[in-house]
């Protein structure tokens, strides 16, 4: 018997731009919003709930709601970095189930390439954040923070650079079919480990791309989904969590997925073995490896073996992931990758992924977002999605 869902993803849109020199951030938000609403077969006049991260121009979602001309009775500005949009899907589902809104719009947009990278640090790191004095003098950067988690995982579990490289290799196999991808060349394990060392032990090809653009999702009530047809995708379960440095007593080998994953699986009533396709946030190769372990796709510490030998490549391995090329090769709009994770999972469940990477009979998918710094100060969001007949 087909599962019931409290809410459905009716519309998706990924902006095709990767460098938006001729657009403002509000323009990008409006373009992705209208794109996702058109995909759903709805108009902006149907939207009554708006979900956005905390980086929008203006305060919360108010300025953009005005810019786009939205008439809202519900809003949520949950900010957990790149995982925000995955959590927004979950929060939209709960708001819809509670009867607080019927058509929820979620948008993400940004132009870090066009604006220059110097703006990133100031935005990402609040001047008044309480840990600042105890970290900033030591030169923390996104790269070396992820590198330190990698180094510890290697120390505890024997994970190797070659194993991590397989994650990039798999992403590149998928990206070759995506005309919008920033990096379309297929790479080998050797290419990854021979690329320049950025922050020991992470190489340049262990890192994601930097790109402009954005994306949007439209989440709707079951009644509206019924009227829109079978391209609507079920939201079956969702979980969220924050992991932090815990007063100086911490373990960097695991992520917030250890919290968000079990909650999402329990709500959906499925297990990792049931998942046909996984979108896993891939800011760096290590992000994928630790997340897959924490979601229960393998025993803790065995992620290296799980990702090796093409096991993440669609049509080759057992766990096809990030078939759009992910953040590692396709797109990492506004340095926040959670949105595109949900979008590609919906494409897979609709059977609308590129034919070369479409997972046959894809009925259950997972999308996971990681925000902030993996395993350090990080927000996690997991959703379990199902095809219309799942």
């Amino acid at each position, binding site marked *: 018997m087909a599962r019931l869902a409290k809410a459905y993803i009716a519309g998706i849109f990924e902006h095709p731009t990767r460098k938006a020199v001729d657009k403002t951030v509000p323009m990008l938000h409006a373009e992705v919003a209208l794109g996702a609403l058109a995909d759903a077969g709805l108009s902006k006049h149907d939207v009554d709930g708006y979900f956005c991260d905390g980086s929008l121009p203006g305060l919360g979602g108010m300025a953009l709601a005005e810019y786009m001309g939205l008439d809202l009775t519900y809003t949520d500005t949950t900010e957990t970095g790149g995982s925000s949009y995955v959590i927004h899907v979950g929060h939209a589902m709960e708001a819809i189930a509670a009867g607080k809104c019927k058509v929820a719009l979620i948008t993400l947009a940004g132009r870090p390439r066009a604006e220059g990278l110097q703006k990133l640090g100031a935005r990402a790191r609040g001047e008044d954040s*309480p840990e600042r004095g105890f970290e900033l003098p030591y030169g923390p950067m996104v790269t070396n923070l992820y590198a330190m988690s990698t180094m510890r995982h290697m120390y505890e579990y024997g994970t190797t650079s070659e194993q991590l490289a397989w994650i990039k290799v798999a992403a590149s196999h998928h990206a070759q079919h995506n005309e919008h991808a920033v990096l379309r060349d297929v790479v080998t394990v050797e290419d990854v480990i021979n690329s320049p060392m950025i922050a020991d032990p992470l190489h340049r090809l262990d890192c994601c791309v930097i790109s402009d653009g954005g994306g949007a999702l439209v989440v709707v009530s079951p009644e509206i989904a019924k009227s829109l047809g079978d391209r609507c995708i079920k939201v079956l379960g969702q979980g969220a969590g924050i992991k932090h440095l815990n*007063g100086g007593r911490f373990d960097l080998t695991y992520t917030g997925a250890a919290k968000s994953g079990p909650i999402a699986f329990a709500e959906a009533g499925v297990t990792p073995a049931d998942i046909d396709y996984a979108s896993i946030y891939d800011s760096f190769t290590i992000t994928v490896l630790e997340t897959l372990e924490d979601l229960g796709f393998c025993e803790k510490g065995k992620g290296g073996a799980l990702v090796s030998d093409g096991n993440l490549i669609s049509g080759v391995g057992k766990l096809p992931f990030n078939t759009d090329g992910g953040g590692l090769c396709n797109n990492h709009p506004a340095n926040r990758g959670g949105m595109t994770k949900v979008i590609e999972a919906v494409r897979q469940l609709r059977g609308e992924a590129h034919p070369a990477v479409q997972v046959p009979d894809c009925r259950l998918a997972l999308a996971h977002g990681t925000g902030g710094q993996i395993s350090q100060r990080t927000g996690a969001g997991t959703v379990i999605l199902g095809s219309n007949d799942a």
Partner: protein
Amino acid sequence: MSDRIYPDPTINLETECYWQAANDGKLLVKSCNACGKAHFYPRAICPECGSPDTTWTEATGRGRIYTYSVMRRADPPYAIAYVTLDEGVTMMSNIVEADFDNLSVDMAVEVMFGQTEGGQALPLFRPARGI
């Protein structure tokens, strides 16, 4: 190759004792009188149990590298690390006076003090020289 310039820390009323002690060559941690646990970075209210009854204690200054990353492309290159102190808490720092090719997780280190741009003493760690 240029000398490494350490940015000044932000200092507030919760943390000024820590930075004053650093200027006197001491590394302090905060401990909680209610639950007995140390924490880092120092706070007025214990993050473990919520008690406001927290007190400064001087750390031995010895610890081990929990993890690290060498930034070889920086000018000058530097080694960022998390160091687990004898007191059981782990703090971010830099490893200095070391051969970056021979750093390792679990290496014994000891505190020393560098200077930030504005002249504030900053706790750093070097490989332990033993006593």
